[in-house]
């Protein structure tokens, strides 16, 4: 009797663990199924190479490039802000700061990481956008720059926290060897510790950029709803995520072609972030320096 009970419990716990696999399967199947029926009406090539995204006007255009362009602009803009700041603060935390400063700053960075993205979106339109328009009066009220700034702030804690962890796992003996050869702290930090921790640092960059690609609420609020092939950060654009939100807020009839665009775009988004996450994990494993 007890054996039956033990076995039943083990099986039940196994089912719990299986839910996560089923979730992935569910995501993949839903995306594939609906995307395929989208491609029955829109040729794959038109979707991937078209330069106009206008699913609600006649004639309809389903070229995904403007949305991908918008998403990449935000990702690049956020990276330009978050990578230098995040790296510098990671170096400071790992190499310069005393234990007490570290113990205070790290939790604060975690708070920054825990703030809901809709709050960042509000911050963008209420504070960053007016600030940008002070300096660039021509800037649209919705613009890619403002969204990039807040997404950059959002992914900053991720970069500094993960890079700090990577740098702190570099053994002390490496630093001491460099000091013994007469290096300054700056040289030890930038020429010994950063290269030694590079795999972890690059992995943190990729993970953070993947987060920026999937970011939704801040870009929906601040970057606008104008799918456009542009490189001007002061114009209104639209990202893939913002488009998905826009469609699901309207009353798009279930089963229509507009409804299916959600899934096709979701598929592109899913593949992009998945590849980045896998690359991040792979780099971390593959190029890890092993210290014994």
């Amino acid at each position: 009797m007890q054996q039956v009970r033990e076995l039943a419990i083990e099986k039940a716990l196994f089912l719990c663990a299986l839910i996560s696999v089923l979730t992935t399967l569910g995501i993949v199947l839903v995306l594939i199924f609906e995307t395929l029926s989208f491609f029955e009406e829109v040729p794959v090539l038109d979707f991937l190479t078209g330069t106009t995204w206008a699913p609600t006007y006649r004639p309809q255009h389903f070229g995904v490039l403007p949305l991908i362009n918008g998403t990449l602009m935000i990702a690049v803009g956020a990276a330009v802000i978050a990578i230098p700041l995040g790296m510098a603060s990671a170096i400071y935390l790992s190499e310069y700061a005393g234990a007490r400063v570290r113990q205070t700053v790290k939790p604060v960075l975690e708070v920054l990481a825990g703030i809901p993205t809709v709050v960042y979106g509000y911050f963008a339109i209420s504070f960053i956008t007016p600030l940008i328009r002070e300096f660039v009066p021509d800037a649209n009220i919705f613009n890619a720059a403002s969204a990039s700034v807040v997404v950059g702030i959002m992914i900053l804690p991720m970069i500094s926290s993960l890079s700090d962890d990577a740098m702190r796992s570099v053994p002390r003996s490496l630093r001491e060897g460099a000091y013994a050869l007469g290096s300054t702290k700056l040289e030890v930090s930038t020429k010994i510790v950063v290269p030694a921790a590079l795999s972890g640092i690059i992995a943190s960059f990729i993970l953070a950029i993947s987060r920026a690609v999937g970011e939704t609420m801040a870009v929906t609020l601040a970057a606008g709803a104008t799918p456009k092939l542009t490189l001007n950060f002061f114009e209104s654009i639209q990202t893939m995520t913002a488009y998905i939100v826009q469609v699901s807020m309207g009353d798009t009839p279930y089963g229509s072609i507009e409804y299916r665009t959600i899934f096709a775009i979701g598929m592109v988004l899913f593949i992009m972030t998945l590849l980045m996450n896998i690359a991040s994990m792979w780099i971390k494993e593959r190029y890890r320096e092993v210290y014994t």
Partner: protein
Amino acid sequence: MRRIKGVVFEYLCLVATSAALLLLALLLWDAWDKGAGWLTFRFLDSFPSRFPEQAGIKSALWGSIWLMLLTALISIPLGVGAAIYLEEYAGRTWLTRIIEINISNLAGVPSIVYGILGLALFVRWMMLGRSLLAGALTMALLILPIIIISSQEAIRAVPNSIREASYALGATKWQTVKFHVLPAALPGILTGNILALSRAVGEAAPLIMIGALTFIAFTPASPFDPFTALPIQIFNWASRPKAEFQYLAAAGILVLLALLLTMNAAAIIIRNKYQKYIKW
């Protein structure tokens, strides 16, 4: 010269670190500055309205609380169960490896993709409609990877000697887990779960996907009722151009942040309290 360069570099790094802290302060100050004046009891106890002076967050606040409780009920048993299986039962097989890789990948899937899954699976296929239950199920899937990973860490921290002592006294595997491993890992598990739930409370994108962005002027009475939630109400107000609605959004943000802060504080208190008692 090298010394000067070193000092300059140190200060640059210090400035970058303080920039992050400064931004946090700025963000909080901005919300406080604009929202504090609107944060009254009437605001907490009124339904949304197209007149800013009469608008409140009653339905959103209750929606968020409902959502949090339902999400916890669904995700905690599943997540902790999965963590127990992976740490205590699973052998090092290919299946275990796949499950673990899969969980860390799921943690990186954008929240809006969970919303798409929720829309297709719960709203349409299971025909739950735009209900609290559909929202809670979607959120549960979203935070499941975080719950599993943090619970695994807590379970892993329990030393093997505890398990072996229990086996030596003739306990079965489940008895060992139930009476020794779980109680010892409980503070860690609770902390991780509360933090995961606080993520769910702040998420808006998946809920918008399943259609929770509607005008709701009542508090939900059952899991099958339509609902709205704090981040969605904030999004709704923030996306209106009129200045008063921006202030309402700021006031809503203050309420949301207060809720999250309470949850985080609870998690930290639990962690600190039990860390004192448990010494291996």
